[in-house]
């Protein structure tokens, strides 16, 4: 039997965790390197979108 995943939970879990970690870093540790985030954030969003699409297609 094929394993099924809740893709919505995965996507939102990743997004919420990233936002929370970024906010915690800003609050307790120090400034974020925005030059890096300007590159990493769009790539991460694209990766999350691709992951969601792939898992959705497999699920169907």
């Amino acid at each position: 039997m094929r394993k099924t995943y809740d893709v919505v939970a995965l996507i939102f879990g990743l997004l919420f965790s990233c936002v929370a970690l970024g906010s915690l870093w800003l609050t307790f540790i120090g400034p974020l390197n925005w030059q890096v985030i300007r590159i990493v954030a769009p790539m991460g969003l694209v990766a999350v979108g691709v992951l969601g699409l792939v898992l959705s297609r497999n699920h169907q």
Partner: protein
Amino acid sequence: MSSIWTIRRSATDVKLTGLCGGVAQHWGIDPVLVRVGWVLLALSGGLGLVLYVAGWLLIPVEGSDKALAEDLFGESVRRWPRELWITLVVVASLVMLTIFGWFSPFGFGPAIVIAVIWYFGFYKGRHGKPDRTTPPAASAETEPAQLSEPQFVRHPGPATPFTEAAEAWQRRVEEHRRQVAADNQTAATPTHHWPAPPAANLSPSTPDAEAAEHSAFLAEPDPVGIYAEPPPAPPVKMSGTKSAKRLRLVSLIVLGLTLTGLGIAQAVGVAIPLAGYLAAALLVIGVTLLAATWFGMARGLLPVGVLLAAAVLIVTAAGPALRVPFATSHHAYMTVAELPTAGDFEDFGELSVDLSQLALSSDASYSAHVDVGRLDVTVPKDANVVLNYTADMGAVRAYGDEVQAGPELTGQIKDPQPAQPGQRTLTLNLSVDAGNIQVQR
């Protein structure tokens, strides 16, 4: 079935509310395409968000004729005219576009592209062309020789009044087809009519009691109840599994322990801002959702996470932590020759310029611009300073007083100290798109 008023949210293909699944099912397209299109629409100044919320509130889930808005606002909303709902959605879309359209990453491009694709690729393709799947009746009638022997389905079981009537009707149709074919072969301009349907009530003089029974049977629209409306399918619940409920319980316990720990830390002297509490709670929800990938998402986690994420973003952006990444540039000029001819520029942050030690050998001018942020200039004590300022949105302070605040600021300020003979004039041309201009001596 092309009207948008007959769309129902899907009860089976549900990611958030089943709206995209319902739209895809209604128009027979891939639900993934609908979801991608909706995300692009949401990036068009938030237009997709308004439409999604409107669809969620106003479109019933399949198997039900009651929209969520009726549950929230009462049965009276059912009587509101359709035009009022359209007006509300349009107004909400315009408000959203006005507020968020200016920093929308893609502008309105995706909305226009999606509208064009939908109209030319879908709507016009179905409504602009005649239906080629049903040949015109005339062509069917002019080709009687090509009629093949019909294949009727026979009821395998014992004969019932319904099956006997059905077979009689099939024979009647076949006789008519053959008669039409014969007429077309003999007459140049055939005119034929369908025979009258069997009379619902035979006259009392009809001798055949069985035929009368058949006719009475056929007179009823649904004699054996095979076309009865199926009962509405119950809406599929998002997730009510035992593991999902257990996961929600565990997440609540972890959330309580986390917040309690932060509270204890604050009580013993560790400074914990509000953003810290909210971000910690959001992290617990995010990790729980990651676990829910395998165990099933418990109801309520997603809305709580969305609200928390919005609160975290707002509180973090408003707090002091986000001021750090703003760029801060300092410039100090001693002579007129050092002043940059093109002026100084900062796109995002604070630009601080010290002209207090500037030796003016002649009249001079200096320009500076900040896109978003703060422009701070200290002028020399012995110069006559003329300040020309422009700000699209923000405030202007000069020599300790607030000059102007609000949108579209522009003006000139003369030096408040009296002019001295032989005094040189320094003209400042300062501008910001959004932010503050401050000049002090």
